[in-house]
């Protein structure tokens, strides 16, 4: 598949009316494969970094809860 994608990229680079969409499609395809490749270390690192940042944000902003506060009366 990667050979096909690179071939498509080569054809796209050769110019023509469909060059820009082909390049963009190829880029999107590569980005999708990167984002869903669980065996890729860099991908896993980026995903877990994002989760870490999200976890820190949640910890700082959403956890100041009084668990013993009375429930609001409707």
């Amino acid at each position, binding site marked *: 598949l990667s050979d096909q994608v690179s071939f498509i990229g080569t054809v796209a680079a050769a110019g023509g009316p469909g060059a820009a969409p082909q390049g963009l499609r190829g880029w999107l395809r590569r980005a999708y494969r990167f984002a869903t490749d669980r065996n890729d*270390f860099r991908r*896993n*690192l980026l*995903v*877990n*970094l994002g*989760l*870490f940042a999200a*976890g*820190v944000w*949640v*910890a*700082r902003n959403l*956890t*100041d*809860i*009084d*668990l*013993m506060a009375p429930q609001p009366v409707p």
Partner: protein
Amino acid sequence: MHPPLLPRLLPPALLTAPRGQRPAGESRRQGPCGTRRDAPGHRTGPGGGTRSRRDATAPLIQLPRHRREASAVLAEVFPQQMEGVKLIVTKTLSSHFQVTHTVHMSTLGPSSYHFNATFVGDRQLGPTEAFPTLIGDMDNSGSLNAQVLHLVAERIRTKAVFQTHQTKFVTWQFDGEYRGDDCTATLTLGNPDLLGESVILVAHFLQSITSRLVLGGEMVYHRRPGEEGAILTLAGKYTALKWVATLNVGYGGAHASYYHRANEQVQVGVELEANTRLQDTTFAFGYQLNLPQANMVFRGLLDSNWSVGGVLEKKLPPLPVTLALGAFLNHWKNRFHCGFSVIVG
């Protein structure tokens, strides 16, 4: 009536493997359920809680003090994996001596019985520090964990750790720590063997730059016949009023953690680890809900291994009994564990 012993006496050292030393294909964080904690047992003391299944011959080294403290704080927030049924009976025989019996009926492996004895000396430096301290834990197969902590001088502490697997010594480790006014230096010898010409040496140094910022480094040197190497790790810790952040960066990877105390009831911990040798990264989010009015503590966990889990601890006054219920589910591996513990004393 004897005055009570120090609270939170440390169980025998639960040691972690050096970075990068892990069986092939085994995640550092994975246990039987694929969750963060793979070894059910007592709530761990410093440095514990991140033990993975490991090669029995791989030496174990305890984390340096700064990472022990950070790990201890996070270990308090994250739930400990539970499976089977456990009965823990603690008896304080005097203000210096305490024994604990632990019976574990396991659903995953063989059941076990542990006998733990702890002796604490007269010299008390803090609520959880007293010297000398001797801790011993033996199980029904004859395996022993023993730890001796001693205050040699006002600023110099020493520790010795021994661990056997039945009749064979697995770990013998010696620590020396110097605590200055604004710095700490530690030297650790792991499994020194003069005849076999092998040793693991860990040296670390921490310096307080400001009242909140601590920077330091750690060097791990190992030597075996025909092989030797060293790893350098840089460490930093920032302590604010309500949160603590740590970062360790080295050749083998990086580790970042964030602990936040939102209020008296809610604490949150976030952890990220990247291991470049094993090409593995993990993320974990844990929280603790503490309700003293209800005599209840709940700890929850969510991590990047598609695991969720929780442990509920409920005291049952007026009895000196605590009931703990725990369950862990790994969605990716389709594994589920649950268990409960009864803690008396």
